[in-house]
């Protein structure tokens, strides 16, 4: 029996736009086991961004239950959510989101600062992580001195360095060419083989197919399997 890492039950998310209330997520049930690599596939406007925000604890659902690593998320306040994000989630963004004024070493250290890791230890951990990503000789480089693929590896290092329960990737290859994108996917497989749980949100079904399981989302409704449309 695989261990359930993430479990969502009857998740509803509504936004009020003007007078009108719009239901973006419609009674979603979704769960992920430890060590899984899952893709959430959907076109823009399907609700996949909202889904990612809720999985990533950036937002709370209007109703429903969300249990992440044994903790009930739905009722948490901003401070608790910040702690959960720091501890449980490793974000990988489409546009990398590196601080351009800081070296890549400092960028990778950033989540460790918020985790209150000592200066010495976080330096060691960040350096070791970048070393592993093949960037060990570029620790003092600034993001704009690196190629897109290298920048995404810095971003992945930053996501993994805190040892989170989930790597949450939002269109991780969106800003990369095909070859570099393939290398990043290779890296995802490696990380998954090491036992890391990965949730990847994408509109590209070829990228989505790298995952062990594909979940489709369309118009706020989620369905398992199938890779036809999207």
């Amino acid at each position, binding site marked *: 029996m695989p261990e359930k890492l993430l479990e969502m039950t009857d998740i509803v998310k509504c936004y009020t736009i003007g007078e009108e209330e719009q239901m973006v997520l419609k009674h979603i049930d979704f769960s992920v086991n430890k060590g899984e690599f899952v893709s959430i596939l959907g076109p823009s406007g399907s609700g996949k961004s909202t889904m990612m*925000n809720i999985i*990533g604890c*950036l*937002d709370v659902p209007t109703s429903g239950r969300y249990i992440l690593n044994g903790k009930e998320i739905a009722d948490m306040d*901003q*401070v608790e959510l*910040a*702690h959960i*994000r*720091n*501890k449980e989630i490793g*974000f990988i*963004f489409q*546009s990398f*989101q590196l*601080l351009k*004024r*800081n070296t890549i070493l400092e960028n990778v250290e*950033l*989540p460790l*600062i*918020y*985790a*209150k890791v000592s200066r010495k230890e976080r330096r060691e951990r960040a350096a070791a992580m970048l070393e592993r990503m093949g960037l060990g000789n570029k620790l003092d480089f600034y993001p704009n001195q690196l190629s897109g693929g290298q920048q995404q590896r810095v971003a992945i290092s*930053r996501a993994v360095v*805190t040892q989170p329960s989930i790597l949450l990737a939002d269109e991780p290859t969106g800003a990369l060419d095909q070859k570099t994108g393939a290398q990043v996917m290779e890296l995802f497989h490696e990380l998954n083989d090491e036992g890391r749980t990965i949730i990847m949100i994408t509109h590209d079904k070829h990228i989505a197919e790298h995952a062990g399981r594909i979940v489709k989302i369309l118009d706020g409704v989620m369905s398992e399997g199938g890779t036809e449309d999207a």
Partner: protein
Amino acid sequence: MLRESIKMSWENIIQNKLRSFLTILGIIIGVTAIIALITVVQALITNINEQFDSVGANTLVINAQGTPLKQGLSDKDLMEINEIDGVTGIAPSINTTIDIYREGTVYEDIVVDGKNETFFNRNSDLILIGRGLNILDVNGKNRVCVISADFMNKVFMGENPVGQDISIMGSSYRIVGVADGGDDSVMTLMSGSTSDIYIPYKNLMSLTGQNRIYSLEVYMTDEAEDTTYISDAVEQYLDTLYNYKDNSYMLIIMDSLLDMMKDVQSMLTTALTAIASIALLVGGIGIMNMMLVSVTERTVEIGLRKALGAEPRLIQVQFLTEAIMLSVLGGILGIVVGLTISFICGAVMDIRVPISWGAIALGVGFSAAVGIIFGFAPAKKASELNPIDALRSV
């Protein structure tokens, strides 16, 4: 954590050097104004106080014109005033301006002061070389004099003048001592002129044909806490002497002058601080504006930091730190500029300018307070940014 905040803030300030400088210009001007004004005013007043203090405390100055029938003060009046309870001594003051001839040179407009032994006892640090006038000189009308250091430099040019003779209005006077400038005397402080030569006052009365004293310093005991009763008694004596005639005399009580100076100082300081506060207010608004722009510019960064687990409070601390650092930086620059201006003013006005730690503390405190007050709203705004909106705005 604070260390990180300071480092990040510093990087951000350095990143936009020109903008940061323009932002803190208001603070720099405000603090410069506070420091310069307070320091210069304090220096001026301290300087005046020191002059008054050296001779002034426990001293009364009488300027007695008297009435047409009773002009000035007679020897008997002087004795009676000296006998008043609490009076420890009196020093009559009489002066005239003459020309002095020596070895073929004429020295014009030389101020000759008539003094008694009490004056020299009271101002014992006045004598640089030799001795002052003593009771035997005064009572015996000895032809001895004390000259000022300025006069010595002008006339004797490095020679030791003690023991030499000079001719004063046809009489030969032996020099027994050299005095320091003479500007410590309350009289010269009031009149603005400095004495060149001191001789026994009775000699000068004879030489000028006066038999009345018009100006007198009265020294009061320093044992009494409150010397009002002494000045009251002196006033009483003079009123009786001149039949309560208006403007027959003027009595200057140095202690109350000192108190007045202190009042003026605190009033000036308050007024100047109020004015400078307006500059600080304007500076604070500048900082608030800059911080709001900074929050908008760094929306994505704030969103990212929050996504990575920064608590809202931490974001707030970071932006507040930046606002405080900006304004304290302005404060420090203001202190440096302000002190520089003060020292230049001091050099120009030829007064000693002490560093006022109070003013410095005020400058730092004020600028830090401005940073906290005007940085609070932008920092709050940053901390309340929704990370989703922030990240979406890419």
